[in-house]
């Protein structure tokens, strides 16, 4: 079920497989279901803690976890709040845990030296999008929600898929750092940090893409200076990726116009109708 078992079985591979299994079981126990007991939730928390320790240990044995206490703290915040986001019952708490996740991710980016991305994550996601989420969630009071809205669909499948994906990612990133040992342990250069931040957005499931994006900027020379980081990012976005940026902008504009058209349909047509009738 896991690629580790077909490859050479090493202790760290076994540990990784065990962590994946524990994480899947923990997620399944914790996800909101109709038949929840306190005992199953406690077991879920326990298994989740075991899985996190297992993942951390795997990362260490694969040579991936840096010694930096700040990094470990913010990464831990990101991961644990990410888990809490999906297992919390109350939608409002889910949103707040998600905000904590974003804060953790932004902390990771700041530790890596990608100041602009770190702060922009907070501005865009935590500051604007999540506030809108909270706004809507608070208006739609959760107490009045139907029972099928309060449980997760396909908890077993979701838990297994998520855990296996995480295992694969850990494995591939671990192999990557094993091939080039210092890339992950030492303080990465800014270019690498940028690439690492861009990688999840590209769809982290494709391992080949990820490895190239991780390595390519480092080979291009990681000497993007302090003063020019934002300028480099801007030049990259509006130079090489100009078309993608423009397409995304047009897409958002269309969505905006469409939303306004949908919202204003009811009343406007009624008054128009009346005016025409008179």
């Amino acid at each position, binding site marked *: 079920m896991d690629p580790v078992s077909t490859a050479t079985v090493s202790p760290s591979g076994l540990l990784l497989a065990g962590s994946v299994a524990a994480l899947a079981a923990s997620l399944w126990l914790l996800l909101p279901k109709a038949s929840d007991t306190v005992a199953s939730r406690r077991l879920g928390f326990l298994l989740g803690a075991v899985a996190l320790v297992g993942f951390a240990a795997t990362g260490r044995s694969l040579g991936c976890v840096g010694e930096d206490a700040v990094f470990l703290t913010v990464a831990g915040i990101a991961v644990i709040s990410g888990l809490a986001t999906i297992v919390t019952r109350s939608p*409002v708490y889910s949103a*707040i845990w998600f*905000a904590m996740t974003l804060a953790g991710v*932004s902390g990771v980016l700041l530790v890596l030296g990608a*100041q*602009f991305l770190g*702060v*922009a994550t*907070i*501005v865009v996601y*935590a*500051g*604007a999008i999540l*506030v*809108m989420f*909270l*706004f809507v969630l*608070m*208006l739609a009071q959760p107490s009045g929600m139907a029972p099928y809205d309060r449980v997760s669909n396909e908890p077993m499948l979701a838990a297994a898929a998520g855990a296996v994906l995480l295992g694969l990612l850990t494995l591939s990133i671990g192999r990557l750092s094993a091939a080039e040992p210092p890339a992950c342990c030492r303080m990465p250069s800014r270019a690498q940090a940028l690439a690492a931040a861009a990688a999840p957005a590209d769809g982290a499931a494709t391992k080949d893409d990820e490895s190239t994006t991780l390595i390519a900027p480092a080979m291009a020379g990681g000497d993007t200076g*302090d*003063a020019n*980081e*934002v300028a480099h990012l801007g030049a990259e976005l509006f130079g090489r990726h100009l078309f993608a940026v423009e397409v995304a902008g047009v897409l958002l504009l269309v969505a905006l116009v469409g939303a306004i058209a949908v919202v204003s349909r009811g*009343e406007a047509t009624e*008054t128009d109708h*009346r005016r025409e009738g*008179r």
Partner: protein
Amino acid sequence: MNLLPSAATLAALVKIGLLVGGLMTAAAYLVLLERWIAAWVQDRRGPNRVGIPLTKIRLFGLGQPLADGLKIILKEDFTPSGVDRVLYNAAPLVILAASLAIFAAIPFGSVLPPLGIPGLPDPVPFLVAPGLDVGVLWVFALSSIAVYGVLLGGWASNNKYGFLGGLRSSAQLVAYEIPLGLGLLGVVLAAGSLRLDTIMNAQAETGVWYAFAQPLGFIVFMVASFAEAARLPFDLPEAEQELVGGYHTEYSGIKLLLFLVAEFLHMITAAFLIVILFLGGWHLWGVTGSSQEIGWIQALLRFGILSGKILGVIVFFMLVRWSWPRFRFDQLMNLAWKVMLPLGLVNLVTVAAVEEFRPQLVTALGPGFAGAVAIALPWIACLAGWLVAGVFTPSGTDNTPILTHDPLDIEREMAEHERLERAPHDVSPTLAGSR
């Protein structure tokens, strides 16, 4: 591993201590100032009794903040039943922490002369986090985190007024962040940096404050920062006459104090930003000079000028509070989306065009005349934009009720309503009436 903190860490800690202490004291005394100004505007005497404790010395009421602070700290910290305890307790902490952390990226002076301490950068900047390249964005990020305090406080206290206040606040802050950002972008374009100290230095070097070079951006930013600070024409989140206390209706004691201090910090932040971005920061023509190599007198002078300008802006905030009525919510939204957003875009495009063609202008016209043109163009854009906004969006701010029905229709509808009342099993009369 060396456990002793380095000189740079110690310097940062000293700066944090000075800044937090100064800000808290400033917030306390600004409350007194606000009450004095309120009294002056309303032709009253205002607080003038409390002086030195246990004596009869009054000192114009300068002891008032101390007495107020003690009173509110010693009050019972009452938690109503039915609140969401975790969020109820977290909200004031979130808002205060975010409002204070903003100041990590805001310079509160120019630089100190070289101190000669090993491990310190030689001109010591008046800035807690001098290495942060994205100071402006940092301010934005943390002020948007502060929204969570308002929103969660309103929701968690399980009170309809608190909830409405929280919702209004989040809608308002999200809406006005956009014109705020557009006003800011013009300055960032002109200065070519996201660092607040670099922006101040750029104004000092040219001697042209961005308020003169980008008048439209200044106006948009000023209005939007009033809204972001939820000061009076925009204080709908806690409109006392409608919402009791808005999002902090259910708070008391020290938690209420945290909310109130955070609100004042928002105003101080807005004043800092207005001064730093548009009013030249520590620069004053013929007084401060513009170089980074300065003596002690110059350093203190610059600090004093920056503080004086900020105080001036804060007094302006307070005077506006007593001279302007509150907006209605639809007016608020109209102003943000139909007036401020287009004006901000006009400003941004003008500034971008001027900055793009500045080298060509300089070669064609010579530096002096080119500078004049570069200032004149934004002023023309400002006047034109203002005229267009004033002519074509009058309904955004006038107070006549928006008629969704024609007056003639109302009589017909009333007749219909009566007919339906006589036949109650047909349609519910309240539904028909409110259609």
